[in-house]
């Protein structure tokens, strides 16, 4: 920044013009290697694509509001649901989790930046380029008729539908290449987070004194390294098939379609945990703060998180009960999948035990987190139903499955993302988001969510499959689909009020101060927003809640923690 008091020697006009100042400001964001700025870039990028993916979902719901609707063509519908899924997983879920990790992990562990700041910037820009590249397909990828066409093969992109014979043009190439590119960025950032947490903790912060948020991000980053690799490998094999005459998946030449399904879900199922563990991480910080109690069973929470990560790499074939595996394989994956329920249950019980005996303040972040616990409970129970292979033979690829995973992705993850934004927005901007708009946002979103996704369970069990651009009028699905679409509309209104809150509070919000929520982790000891390099002096901690120790010197945590 130009310092007005000390003009640059030799410069005729030290005060930059308005335009030049703007340019310098933009430039500072492009070349930054600061973990907080990169974190904000990740989050803004993800929120932008959240709106794009949401708009795609809304178009899907308008198409399905009545049977045999002609709002969009079958071709466009298939592009919409493919792009909706791909966007929400790769351009929203992953970037936003890395955004929060980037912003918060160094602050929470008392570090002055990430371990590899330049790798950090590289990771973000690769991810950003991948997203833009994917969306460029709408105008650039010439499809069947020589015009722009987005990928339309489903976000799972099962072969041989993606082979040259069935997917001519370049839309499938855009899908594969965009994900390979953003995948490299993701790998870089995951390595960076692991390195930061292992080697950059401040004095006194042993692994078992780390905030659970940092623990979960360590687990997630490790899991990311395991999951992204098979996906990247499979996409490179797909491109070899498409352009270099490979036969990995070419069923006409003896290749295997089932191998792709294995590859995809060896990535795809751990990926679900890559997305949901950050939601747990957020809840692990917010629930104690607003219950005014330390997290219940910290060691059990750490063990459960690591346990979930381990079990999650052995459950992928529960997406494949209908593919025709042997009965023994089916039984194995039933058991491994059900076992995930045990550590997950431990987490839910610990959250409830943390709230038990507390003095719970239901500010907006806590409202979202409480709804998260409730919805995640239901998502877990429908997950148990789907793990029962014979029941999955009925429900697989039906709207019941759509309802189940949106309960996880929206009911758990998006609710926690909203909670996190309400909670840490004051730290990042120095302003508190409006509680009034926040309450509107919460209740509208809560009602819309349940109207949409509760109803989807029913229509799925009545035989409605996923990925269909329209349905028959006489199947008894029409009324339910109408209400599902109405719920989507209510959620859209809620997101608009949220967007308005983000903008309005940035300009006119209440000053936050260092510690608006009376919280206990290190980031709240810094000014809001924190200065470059975070801490003037390296902090020293003696317990999991350093700010609790400061606020209660006669009753500090380190006397009681085990």
């Amino acid at each position, binding site marked *: 920044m130009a310092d007005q008091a000390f003009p640059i020697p030799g410069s005729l006009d030290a005060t930059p013009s308005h335009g030049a100042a703007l340019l310098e400001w933009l430039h500072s964001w492009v070349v930054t290697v600061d973990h907080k700025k990169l974190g904000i870039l990740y989050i803004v990028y993800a929120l932008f694509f959240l709106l794009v993916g949401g708009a795609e979902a809304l178009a899907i719901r308008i198409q399905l509001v009545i049977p045999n609707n002609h709002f969009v063509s079958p071709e466009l519908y298939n592009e919409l649901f493919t792009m909706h899924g791909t966007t929400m997983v790769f351009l929203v879920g992953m970037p936003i989790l890395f955004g929060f990790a980037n912003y918060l992990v160094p602050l929470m562990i008392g570090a002055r930046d990430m371990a590899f700041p330049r790798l950090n910037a590289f990771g973000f820009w690769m991810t950003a380029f991948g997203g833009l590249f994917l969306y460029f397909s709408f105008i650039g990828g010439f499809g069947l008729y020589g015009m722009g066409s987005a990928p339309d093969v489903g976000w799972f992109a099962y072969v041989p539908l993606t082979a040259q014979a069935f997917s001519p043009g370049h839309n499938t190439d855009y899908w594969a290449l965009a994900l390979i590119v953003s995948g490299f960025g993701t790998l870089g950032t995951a390595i960076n987070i692991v390195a930061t947490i292992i080697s950059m903790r401040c004095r006194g912060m042993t692994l078992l004194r780390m905030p659970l948020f940092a623990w979960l991000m360590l687990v997630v980053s490790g899991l990311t390294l395991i999951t992204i690799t098979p996906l990247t490998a499979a996409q490179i094999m797909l491109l070899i098939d498409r352009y270099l005459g490979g036969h990995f998946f070419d069923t006409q030449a003896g290749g295997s379609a089932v191998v792709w399904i294995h590859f995809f879900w060896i990535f795809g199922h751990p990926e679900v945990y890559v997305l949901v563990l950050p939601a747990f991480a957020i809840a692990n910080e917010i629930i104690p703060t607003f219950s005014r109690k330390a997290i219940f069973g910290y060691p059990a929470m750490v063990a459960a998180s690591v346990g979930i990560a381990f079990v999650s790499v052995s459950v992928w074939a529960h997406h494949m009960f209908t593919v025709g595996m042997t009965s023994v394989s089916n039984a194995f994956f039933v058991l491994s999948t059900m076992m995930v329920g045990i550590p997950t249950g431990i987490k839910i019980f610990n959250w409830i035990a943390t709230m038990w005996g507390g003095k719970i303040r239901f500010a907006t972040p806590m409202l979202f987190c409480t709804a998260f616990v409730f919805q995640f409970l239901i998502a877990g129970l429908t997950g148990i139903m789907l793990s029962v292979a014979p029941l999955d*033979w009925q429900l*697989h690829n039906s709207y019941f499955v759509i309802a189940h995973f949106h309960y996880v992705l929206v009911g758990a993850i998006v609710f926690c993302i909203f909670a996190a934004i309400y909670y840490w927005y004051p730290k990042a901007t120095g302003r508190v988001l409006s509680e009034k708009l926040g309450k509107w946002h919460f209740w509208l979103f809560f009602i819309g969510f349940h109207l949409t996704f509760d109803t989807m369970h029913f229509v799925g069990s009545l*035989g409605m499959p996923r*990925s269909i651009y329209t349905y028959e009028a006489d*199947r008894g699905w029409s009324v339910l689909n109408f209400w599902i679409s109405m719920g989507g509309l209510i959620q859209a209104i809620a997101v608009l009020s949220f967007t308005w809150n983000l903008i309005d509070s940035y300009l006119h919000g209440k000053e936050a101060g260092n510690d608006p929520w009376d919280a206990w982790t290190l980031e709240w000891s810094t000014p809001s927003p924190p200065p470059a390099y975070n801490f003037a002096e390296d902090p020293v901690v003696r317990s999991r809640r350093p700010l609790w120790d400061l606020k209660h010197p006669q009753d500090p945590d380190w006397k009681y923690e085990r």
Partner: protein
Amino acid sequence: MFAQGPQATPSIWAPASTPAHEIYGLSLFVFLITGAIFAVVGGLLAFVIIKFHARESDAGHEPAQIYGSVQVELAWTVIPVLIVVVLFLTTARIIFAIQDAPEPKSALDVIVVGHQFWWEFRYPKLGIVTANELHVPVSTSSNPDPTYLKLLSADVDHSFWVPQLGGKTDLIPNHPNQMWIDPQATGLYLGQCAQFCGMEHAKMLIRVYVDTPRQFDVWAKNQQRPGTQDASVAAGRHIFETEACMSCHTIAGTVAKGTFGPDLTHLMSRATIAAGAAANTPQNLRAWIQDPNVIKPGALMPAMQLSDRQIDEVVAYLSSLH
């Protein structure tokens, strides 16, 4: 045994065949357990929200800090483990009962081939080939007559799902699969493709006609005959055999031996065309031949570029194929 017959809504709650019924019974058990868990944990959460929300009076005081309890953690680890054991054993029993049921000698074999975007049904023992509408005999406890479906694909992945008759099984190229049904009430059962297979995945519908043994015999006898050779529609037949139609469609007993599209030998025995996308009426046939995209955009049959008179003659010919 099952009171409900075929329904307009293809619900998994109205099973009409042993696999569907086994799954239905299992699902009730699973709902009972998950429902009980929901009641207990959801009840605890509701209690905590109501009982422990902050009140005006306790401003300024922090509640007692409790860091955890090994005994409690053990309890809520062991109880879920026991539940998992019970659920797993129950599930495994049903998996083996359905998936590994030995095929009786009397069973009817049908080969199902998935195509973009229609179903081919072949009855190897009976020498029948048809499309989109599957006929099977009813199976009763006194006279069990199950049907075993061998599932193949000619192009991409599909999935055969008729919820009232059983769970779905995928049709994957190079990966033959099998499933079985034994429908116990006659009538028409509806389903559709359940694995995204391309542009017209939504209009790849399945109709399963469950016939009495007599009806099934009559139907099978008719399907085994070659196509009718009615002189009054010779003009239409001539067009069919000289234009591109015969490259993709078969009409038994004529030179039309294409296999890319549905077998049309007994087209008039079917209630629908285009895999259930439209009723089988002369008007719809006409519209379909003129331009399939009007009924089913993305269908692989091209618009045939015939004159109005030629289309009328072809429709007349097709209408004679009973």
